[in-house]
């Protein structure tokens, strides 16, 4: 395989080792700190999901938070049912007489886990089919997905009896798996989230290095040209939207478990734009870099928003502007340019030191 694939595999292993072993040691295995970091890891999944559609396929999905929210609410509905005897409390306050039909299957954990992946994938796929069969591209994808996000959030807030409205779903139980009640402040829970991120990244690395990822990059550059090679561009774009949405839903489920509530702010415009910023800071071309970007920006936010409560959003905006202006390919771009420079320097150094014949070869090679 290509050298780039090897780099990504090495990066994936290092990243996984650091989050699984390094971070807990750095945090002295402190439950509270690890819960905070698990939150960053969950957000890293949604950031890498955006890198798949935006970085690889060039489809800027500003509605990523909607699919994240769907996963988050799916998990919250399950945990809310586990926490209440019969009707969830907020339904009583809203004069809902009995458990609504769409809540019923969420009694089942298996259904919840599937729904948290498949409902976002289905909705994402539906929007994608309409957009991409009509060959909508570029900024219009961003506008349509943003409009969907706003409409979806309004719908969730409006259906107070079903969703808890503005308050969201609070007072959740802890997830109980067979033989394990998942305490979000435990080591076990941290490893669960870190493991999920590692798996999501492995899927992402595989996809970007598969022929699927290659065709998506080709589509990003020139969709029309790619059609003339016989690829059904809309199918590829729809597939990456579905995969990205499912990953976002997965992240949402974990996020609800970390914070122990689900809120309509998870489907907000500012949250969705924040995902774009994380992804851009890390580097949207690489899923690992995008995950890294989410962790870095959120760590910064964790430190700085304590100090500058009001000013933090302004600072985040400034960071985004600076990144777009001075490192449009993010931290990843910076590093890969540096690596390319080092390689070139290394090659020239070698050629100069080995023997004169290879040097002339190199020079004639450059002239051709």
């Amino acid at each position: 395989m290509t050298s780039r694939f090897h780099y990504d595999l090495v990066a994936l292993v290092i990243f996984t080792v650091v989050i699984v072993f390094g971070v807990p040691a750095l945090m002295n295995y402190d439950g509270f700190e690890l819960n905070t970091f698990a939150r960053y890891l969950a957000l890293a999944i949604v950031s890498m999901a955006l890198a798949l559609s935006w970085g690889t396929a060039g489809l800027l999905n500003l509605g990523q938070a909607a699919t994240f929210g769907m996963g988050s609410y799916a998990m919250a509905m399950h945990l809310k049912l586990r926490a209440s005897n019969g009707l969830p409390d907020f339904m009583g306050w809203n004069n809902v007489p009995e458990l609504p039909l769409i809540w019923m299957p969420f009694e089942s954990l298996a259904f919840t886990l599937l729904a948290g992946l498949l409902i976002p994938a289905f909705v994402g796929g539906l929007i994608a089919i309409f957009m991409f069969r009509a060959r909508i591209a570029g900024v219009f994808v961003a506008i349509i997905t943003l409009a969907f996000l706003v409409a979806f959030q309004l719908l969730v807030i409006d259906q107070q009896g079903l969703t808890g409205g503005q308050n969201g779903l609070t007072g959740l139980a802890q997830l109980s798996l067979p033989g394990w009640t998942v305490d979000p402040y435990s080591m076990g829970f941290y490893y669960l989230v870190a493991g999920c991120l590692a798996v999501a990244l492995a899927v992402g690395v595989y996809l970007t290095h598969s022929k699927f990822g290659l065709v998506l990059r080709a589509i990003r550059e020139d969709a029309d040209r790619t059609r003339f090679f016989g690829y059904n561009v809309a199918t590829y774009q729809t597939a990456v939207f579905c995969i990205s949405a499912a990953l976002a839903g997965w992240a949402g489920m974990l996020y609800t478990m970390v914070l122990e509530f689900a809120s309509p702010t998870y489907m907000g415009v500012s949250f969705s734009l924040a995902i774009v910023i994380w992804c851009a800071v890390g580097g949207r071309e690489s899923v690992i870099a995008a995950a890294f970007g989410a962790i870095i920006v959120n760590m910064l936010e964790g430190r700085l928003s304590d100090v500058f409560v009001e000013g933090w959003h302004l600072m985040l905006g400034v960071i985004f502007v600076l990144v777009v202006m001075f490192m449009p390919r993010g931290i990843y771009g910076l590093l890969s340019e540096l690596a390319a420079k080092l390689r070139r320097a290394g090659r020239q150094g070698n050629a100069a030191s080995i023997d004169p014949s290879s040097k002339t070869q190199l020079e004639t090679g450059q002239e051709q």
Partner: protein
Amino acid sequence: MQQLQVTDLHVEFGGLRAVDGLSFAVEEGEILCLLGPNGAGKSTTLDLICGKTQPTGGSIRLNGTEISQMLEFRRARLGIGRKFQVPSVYRDLTVAENLSVARSRRPGLWSALTRFSLSDVRETEGILERVDLSSKREELAGNLSHGETQWLEIAMLIAQDSRLILMDEPTAGMTIQETEKTAEIFRSLSDSHTLIVVEHDMSFVRTVADRIIVMNRGAMLAEGSIEEIETNEDVKTAYLGH
């Protein structure tokens, strides 16, 4: 055997009849050159065959199948390849990756999900050597010179291995030697492929063409071998304007 049959093809762009009642057929393994003054509708004809433009009337049959209303990727799957006038390679992909995209025997989603990005390049061994690009496999296509970019696109079409290849000015910007080499490649391609070539370079046309169609104002003006075309009075009038 007739591979492609175009019958009474029409297309209008806002009142302008770019192609106006064009009919012709192409035999399998033939190299057909389309000639004609600027605006004669040569490129538009290729666009209509490959699906870039939808015709307003007429029929296009590929091996007997009507394709004029098909989406372009379906036509590509039936065996139509296209080289555009402006070299269109993927500039952010490496040379090898460009070839892998072009090698689209299995264009479906599932096969793309289950194979690595360059797994199809192996099937295209030798193509890069043929166009002198094997030392640039890992180079980004955007870093190639103009001539190399032309070669890469030709290599991509060979990799795609379509039975019918539509070439729009393949030798534009090439040196004499490069043009000669292109002619050689085209001749060897015609063993198993059919080519329709739009070209202005008459010496190139003379070397490769089995048959020539001269177009003017969207219709066929003359058809025949190079000798027949060069002595045709109508052609002289169309080109020289009297």
